């Protein structure tokens, strides 16, 4: 080879050994120690308890001493009607949620955007986002009180000459109540991201549309919505990643014994069977593990899809 084909830059040769680099970074190991300890003690230690899913728990032998039963607990999931119903409910509720609840924040953001930025708009936003900061324990009390037989909504019905309806214990009304109260609680918070996205849409596109004779609604449909399409899709994808969750906090606080057949999700089911006197710890751990694994798979799919869309995933840059 002629000397002109060699690169002009001298390639650096690594002299630093692994051990040297470790010694150089000793303070860094120290600084991540507390956080890693927390992770290990509170996230990784419990993972050893997962072995219960493959065992028949015996209180006297403890977790480590109980006998292995392989996949028996998992097989049992699919022959237990209550468990199967919980899985079906979870999927039904989650997908309904995704379909129904993603629209209001977008609609609200679009409407809010029409109001000039000022005290009025900020005041509205303050009211809208307030319920997001309360826990479902609080909001469930407010919702239940309002929808109870003698509560506000029913009083309104009386005024309009309608009969009272028992919303809370009705199987037909429970899920709509679920979706509506979640929209009521969370859509204000959701508008924050959408408002920012709407503000980021190129104003010249609106001018162009206006010149072409589009009115405000046409502009919204043809300029705004396509402009925030990416954010909408990301949110939907993230929603799919959370399908196995279906809103434990909300359902736990709103449900009662008359509506269990439509409200029982995997998490509430696990709670019910775990903290009873005759609980089979192996079985309930198995249900939980089943859910966690599917959840993890869904998150991977969601992350992959988001990466495809954005160029970066949800967990890494």
């Amino acid at each position: 080879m002629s000397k002109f084909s060699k690169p002009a830059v001298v390639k650096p040769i690594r002299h630093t050994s692994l051990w040297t680099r470790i010694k150089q970074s000793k303070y860094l190991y120290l600084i991540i120690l507390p956080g890693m300890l927390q992770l290990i003690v509170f996230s990784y230690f419990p993972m050893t308890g997962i072995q219960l899913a493959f065992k028949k728990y015996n209180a006297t032998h403890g977790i480590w001493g109980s006998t292995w039963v392989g996949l028996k607990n998992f097989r049992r999931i699919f022959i237990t009607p209550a468990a199967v119903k919980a899985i079906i409910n979870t999927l039904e509720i989650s997908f309904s949620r995704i379909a129904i609840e993603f629209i209001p924040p977008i609609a609200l953001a679009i409407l809010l955007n029409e109001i000039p930025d000022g005290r009025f708009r900020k005041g509205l936003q303050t009211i809208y986002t307030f319920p997001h900061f309360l826990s479902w324990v609080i909001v469930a009390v407010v919702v239940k009180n309002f929808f109870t037989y003698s509560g506000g909504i029913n009083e309104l019905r009386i005024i309009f000459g309608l009969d009272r309806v028992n919303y809370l214990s009705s199987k037909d009304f429970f899920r709509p109540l679920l979706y509506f109260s979640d929209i009521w609680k969370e859509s204000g918070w959701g508008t924050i991201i959408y408002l920012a996205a709407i503000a980021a849409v190129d104003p010249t596109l609106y001018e162009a549309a206006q010149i072409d004779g589009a009115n405000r609604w046409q502009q919204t449909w043809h300029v705004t919505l396509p402009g925030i399409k990416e954010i909408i899709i990301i949110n939907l994808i993230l929603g799919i990643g959370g399908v196995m969750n279906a809103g434990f906090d909300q359902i736990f606080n709103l449900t009662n014994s008359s509506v269990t057949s439509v409200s029982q999700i995997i998490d509430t089911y696990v709670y019910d069977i775990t903290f009873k006197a005759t609980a089979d710890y192996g079985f309930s751990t198995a249900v939980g593990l089943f859910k966690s694994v599917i959840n993890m798979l869904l998150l991977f799919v969601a992350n992959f899809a988001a990466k495809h869309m954005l160029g970066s995933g949800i967990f890494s840059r």
Partner: protein
Amino acid sequence: MQNNPKKQKKKRHSGQQIIIALFLLLWGCAIFIPFWNAIVISFMSKSQYNTHTAALIPYGFNIGNYEHLINAGGLLNSYLNTAIIVICGTACSLLFTTMLAYGFSKPFPGRKLFFSMMLFTMFFGGGMLPTYLNLKSLGLLGTRTAIILMFSLSGFHVIIMKNSFENSPREMEEAAKIDGANDLMIFLRVLLPLQSPMLAAIGLFTAVGYWNEWFWSSLVINKMELLPISVFLRNAVSSATTQINFGGVNFSSPENQKNVFTLGISMATLVFTMLPVMCVYPFLQKYFAKGVLTGAVKM
């Protein structure tokens, strides 16, 4: 309706805008009214409620329910417990988060491994029972420490902070190194102060999370004196475990006894639980919004 561009130049609002404003106002009322309803009930007496169950207009300022609540005790204590959990929890969380974030922002052997360990916990966990049994074997059942520690690390926050550290200007760090500062001083005096808006936002979110935590608190803490206010509220409104229900003990003065009613007491408890959030929230709202946007952008 066509929006006349000329009209927009003037300050006058179009008919469309007014309709939209009215609709938004209506939605604002829809949010406001159920809370108002609860507040009004809390200030009613039993007889007032029985005649006016709609309870949208206050009929007086009856504080009987509140008297009963305060006399029954446990309220102030729960506030204290929540405050302890929130303050200690947020402090721990900020500590762990910033330290991990800073560490992960620097290259060192094993960084990828440890970072992946953290990532893994973000989408897989032991589950309800193993987590509970773990707390049991750590001897943390029945303590507030369990709650403080178990929620003290959020992978999302670490990632956001890590990105923030990585984006901070190198020159400041190098200048400090030249001045002779060691790694710890660089961290504390130079880099951390740069992150204060981020810290404020993350701290706020963490604090709200701790404030609202009720599930594990109700599972882990069984002593009445240690319950945070979220669980106190749950107990107050669930008929099964009401400790202030006057089926048993009556905490009101004799004249008050006939004015007080269960729903009123529940609503009074609710107001107490919401009060701190209602007072603090409007002032902090912009930090929350900013935090959400920064977090979203960084992702």
